[in-house]
């Protein structure tokens, strides 16, 4: 057998091993109840509840922003983001959070917003037209 083949085989075995390890990092979405049960850092996706309070008062604490999220199971929970309120947060619909339960609240360290920003103006436009 050629050395190159040996190297290739070692690489393949290594690759399978590492990919197997890497796959452990792949996360699945959790619900709030699972987050409570596990107490670990999880990813939660849900809908922003626009009717409920979104609190950000930088004069008190520039790293505290809270809002309410409804997860896939329909459970509502107060979410605390330890950071500034993102620009145009109100326009978001789907929110993906990384964080964990702390007391009653879900404390998020990362947040990804899905906002229909691309078509936002068009919606406005349609509203103007219909109104």
């Amino acid at each position, binding site marked *: 057998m*050629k*050395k*190159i083949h040996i*190297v*290739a085989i070692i*690489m393949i075995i*290594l*690759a399978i091993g*590492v*990919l197997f390890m*890497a*796959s452990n*990092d*792949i*996360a*699945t*979405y959790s619900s709030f109840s699972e987050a409570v049960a596990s107490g670990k*850092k*999880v*990813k939660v*996706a849900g809908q922003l509840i626009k009717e409920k309070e979104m609190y*950000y008062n*930088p*004069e008190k*604490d*520039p*790293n505290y922003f809270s809002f309410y999220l409804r997860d896939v199971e329909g459970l509502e929970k107060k979410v605390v983001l*330890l*950071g*500034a*309120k993102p*620009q145009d947060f109100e326009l978001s619909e789907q929110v*993906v959070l*990384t964080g964990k339960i702390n007391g009653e609240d879900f*404390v998020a*360290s990362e947040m*990804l917003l*899905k906002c229909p920003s*691309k*078509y936002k*103006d*068009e919606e406005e*436009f*349609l509203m*103007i*037209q*219909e109104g």
Partner: protein
Amino acid sequence: MKEIQYIGEHLIFGQIGHFLIVLAFVASLFSAISYFMATQKRNTNQFTTWRAMGRLGFVVHGISIMTAIAIIFHIMLNKYYEYSYVFQHVSEDLPFKYIFSAFWEGQEGSFLLWMFWHIILGVILIFSAKKWESPVLFCIAGIQFFIGTMILGLHFGDLKIGSSPMVLFRDTAALPLFAKEDYVLQLAQFADGLNPLLQNYWMTIHPPTLFLGFASTIVPFSYAVAGLWTKDHKEWLSPALKWALFSGFILGTGILMGGAWAYEALSFGGYWAWDPVENTSLVPWLIMIAGVHTNLISKSTGYSIKTTYLFYLLSFILIVYSTTLTRSGVLGDTSVHAFTEMGLENQLLIFILACVFGSIFMMIKGFPSVPYPEKEETFFSKEFWMFTGSLVLLFSSILITFTTSIPVYNKVASLFNYDLGLTSPLEPITHYNKYQLWIAVFIGLLSGVGQYLRYREFNIKGRAKKIWIHVGVCSVLAIALSYLTTLWIEVNAWQHLLMMFFAYFTIFANLDVLLTFTKWNKHQLPSFLAHAGFGIMVIGILASGLNQKHISTNPFAQRGLLPDDMLGKNVLLIKDSPMHINGYKVTYTGDSIVDNMRYFKVNYQKIDKMGNTYEEFNLTPNALYNSKFTKIAAYNPSTKRYLTKDIFSHIAGLPPGESDIEEAKAKEDSLNYRMIDIRIGEELLFKDTLQITPDSAYVKVFKAVVTEINKDPEHEEYKKEAGDLALGLKMKISFIEKPEEIYEVEPMIVVRSSLIYHYPAQINEIALKIKLTEKTLSEVFKTETELGYQNFDFTREQSINFNGYKITFEGFDKETKHPDYIEEEGDIAVSAVMRVEKDGFDGSAKPVYLIRDNSPFNLKDQIQEEGFHFRFTKIDPSTGKISMSIAQQAPAKDFQFAVAANSYRSDYIVLEAIEFPGINLFWIGTIMMMLGFLVALLLRSSKKVA
């Protein structure tokens, strides 16, 4: 239904444009088929005919696409909003310089940009590829055919093929507006324009570079296909290598520009975030680099030809994969900058499957005839180490793609009605870094040691000792430098130390080989630049990544129970109040507006242990407002650059009222104003009750004094105009618990063409907002009827007594100089000089009597100080007797102001500031790598290839 005859549309451009796109599509197919036949019949006399047809097809294709692009620019520049693409990407206020950015902002435009580069490359290849022209151009024309389907915009029943940039807005949506025949005129005000985030020069240079990079991968791909097809497995290697170097250079530069944009102009807080969109353009580059290495091996030794084929085919396929991921909407959940779904998924899928199966087919057909040397390469040959390095790059690509493709697994599972619900790792950056650091370790090792070795080395013995000594010295140097580096930056994990060691090792080894082994041979230069650059880049990544430090954490506000990543990253800076954070004294000193940008000046002073400032600089992070100035569209950072580190800062938030006009209004509406009556000179106390909890309240007492009425007040937002009635009240306000702090304010009210404007005074320190009421206005500016004029008749030099004043009619002044009087022809105007005297006071007024068009008018005059109003109402020319209406207004004393306590501060910013040490190493390293490709390309191009 009656057809509406629309007016103001420019349909001809759309019709021509659409025709050209279809023509280009057909021509690319024609060209591909002809070139296919030309390749098949390359050894017959039909060859030249087929090739001529192929060329013709490609030229028609190229001209059509170029003209279509020109037409799109034409309709964009002329702002024909009836076209959907124009409506979505252009707006009235879009500066000309951003028209290119607007063009490639959308999917259709970026497809056209990609095709544009393919055409340019194709034309160059028609002239330069010689015997390779037919198979190479077959590939390019074929790929153009597939990309062409994306912009076709043809409908067959329910089947929609592609999305055309020429589509009319009224064909995309059924809006009531389209019932009007002149709807076009109304579109301008709604046009979206270019996303303000993208309105900077990076958007002008990054996409075309990146797309040229994407497009360039087609050339090595096509040469690989050509080699497999013609079974001429050796000769294609030379031209392919040059194009692969070109691709490595341009694609790498394009990716880097993206990183530089993210770092410099966007508030991403870094140059690389392992975002899927970034990853999927990095991976084809890595594979291209792997291909360059195996290509070098195969040119020098004859080994690795198959792997070279594989890498070049794979690189382009991965570009198509990247396109599919970013444009199909699959990434939606995991990436910040993917396109939205446009119904192109199936077409993209067919495209990539065609590339994959086409490549597999070619390899099956071609591989059996690939030659390879009888003798096996030895362990200490250069080719062995280079080949292993290529496999490491492949390995890196597999790992990155594995995680980036998570959304794809979900998508595939969902096709089988199975919901996997997988998502990217909780800590994506940690995840990628922990595997990729091993890649860096191996690359460092292989690229360092590999330099000392020779191709086709079958007898290392004679050189072994020398090499061991050199490797040993480089290792010692690397250990020493690694140690010194740990004095500068914190590197704790052993994996990172190892990574740093090998980075230094490859830097020294490459330098050593360049200087001592090859004695400055210019052909060693590209390799040196690329590999030493890689090492320097790795050090830069370690320094800036591991040691990036938030300056903006307030040590006093930390919630001690939380882990590190949950500590606050932002600080609140109140205007002119310095804050001491992490060795800096940071002060927000003010803001200024230039166009749509609002710049916030932040002063940084470095403080030593004694409390002395030894270094000072200003940064001006800014907020970009939308075109109507009602809302902030984006925050842009500002960075202080040192040789050894960067201080990066951006605005994380502004007071609600400053970032959004609607919020400002909501805040103003939520304020609870109370009316307070006050007299001039009077000291008045007023209270405010602050509800803390439902059961407890806190009563604040304030003191107010009005010191002066100002009829010529000034305010930074007020620009005086003729005819304004402006009033300011000078007041002194204090909070009773801190009586020594007196705030002198001057709220203002202005009447301009019968509208009232308020200029309130905001006292941030005690959260008070004060505005004047209309009662104050009417108190100071009484209406004519309220004044109570009395009539008097005067003869010249006659005096009367009025309220204790002596008023004398001193005579006429023919030179009428009344401020409100504008002379017209035929006017008969005269002013009376009225003198008013009282002990110590002596003043005069000149009211005007005027006959214009046979009608009498009068223009009043006043003596402001004593409140006198004069109206010259009648004149008897025969006797010289006049009638004068006189009123004296009592000085205004009773004022009213409205006060809102607990008003919102408007004088602060929320700032994030990060220190990136060693970031310049990253840029230097990456630029060196790119130079490596460029120099290699230039050296190989200058050499006359046999």
